[in-house]
């Protein structure tokens, strides 16, 4: 299984940039918006290190919950401070775990069987949300749900999500909202893939090996253009 450390090393090699793999506060001990505050703290730190970090060429990215935080951080800062975001299967609307109705199938969805990735049970997801979100905080708050941030506040971004991911329909809605607002979104829907799909791709899954390669290539393209 691919490790996050491997992805960080890969991005550092390919982008010729410093990668800061940053931790953040976790629920239930530290609930929202402490995690976002931590990301903003790390961004602030990059601006105090001119000897080795060029904070004017900053991009942020993440996976799942981390992708949610990357989007929130970019939208909450003055435009241009974060130059691009890579968001792989982010939860964008924390009011629910999936919206009604499913988007139309895409080419590749017709192949029988599910692709790689996790199936997240709605009951467990509810518990996670309960641990992370204070009881009295509005779940449509722009400090927790990127879907309710001002759409034009987002920099160019790449959004990667599998069509069998519980978060797929939310990501499609998010992508549509941003595209209508004129934000450059490279949207990559991965047919039949579930949550965290790229970690579960094993040798011999040739279609998904290719899709994973494509997803990393498009992520690097998006970030590289922004850091130039």
């Amino acid at each position, binding site marked *: *299984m*691919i*490790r*996050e*450390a*491997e992805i*960080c*090393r*890969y*991005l*550092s*090699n390919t*982008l*010729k*940039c*410093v*990668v*800061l*793999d*940053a*931790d*953040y*506060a*976790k*629920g*239930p001990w530290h609930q*929202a918006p*402490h995690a976002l505050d*931590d*990301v*903003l703290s*790390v961004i*602030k*730190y990059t601006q105090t290190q*001119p*000897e*080795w*970090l*060029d*904070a004017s060429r*900053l*991009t*942020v*990215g*993440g*996976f*799942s*919950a*981390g992708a949610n935080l990357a989007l929130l951080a970019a939208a909450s800062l003055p435009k241009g401070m974060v130059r691009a975001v890579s968001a792989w299967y982010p939860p964008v609307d924390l009011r629910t775990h999936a919206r009604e109705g499913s988007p139309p199938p895409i080419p590749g969805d017709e192949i029988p069987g599910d692709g790689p990735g996790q199936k997240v049970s709605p009951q467990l997801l509810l*518990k*996670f*949300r*309960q*641990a*992370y979100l204070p*009881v009295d905080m509005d779940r449509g708050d722009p400090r927790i749900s990127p879907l309710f941030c001002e759409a034009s506040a987002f920099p160019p971004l790449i959004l990667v999500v599998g069509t069998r991911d519980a978060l797929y329909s939310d990501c499609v809605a998010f992508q549509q909202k941003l595209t209508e607002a004129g934000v450059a979104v490279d949207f990559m829907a991965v047919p039949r893939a579930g949550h*965290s799909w790229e970690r579960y791709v094993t040798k011999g899954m040739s279609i998904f*090996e290719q899709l*994973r390669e494509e997803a990393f290539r498009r992520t690097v393209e998006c970030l590289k253009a922004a*850091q130039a």
Partner: protein
Amino acid sequence: MFGLIDYDTQQKLGMPLSEYIPFMATIYGIRATAGLAVWAAKTRKATVDLVPLDQSILPDRVILVDSNDSNRKINVEVYVPAGATGPLPVHINLHGGSFIMPLLGV
């Protein structure tokens, strides 16, 4: 802070004790599983896909960044490209884990 029965956390979650105890048992179970994944990941080698096999995937160093809103310190693992000099562009990576799992680097 890490006791199973922790009044502050229980208040924060707004749950009666009968709901709070099984809830926290689930959270600790998930955190323990995540901890095992962290431990297992440290012994695993890179796959060939992304990084040359002879290159270490471990971070070059770890720094502690002050949190804006409390006296907590934030762990940041640093990856620097080989042979690069001068101020470099920066990419901040944020791991997944449903906002509750300690999966830095996994």
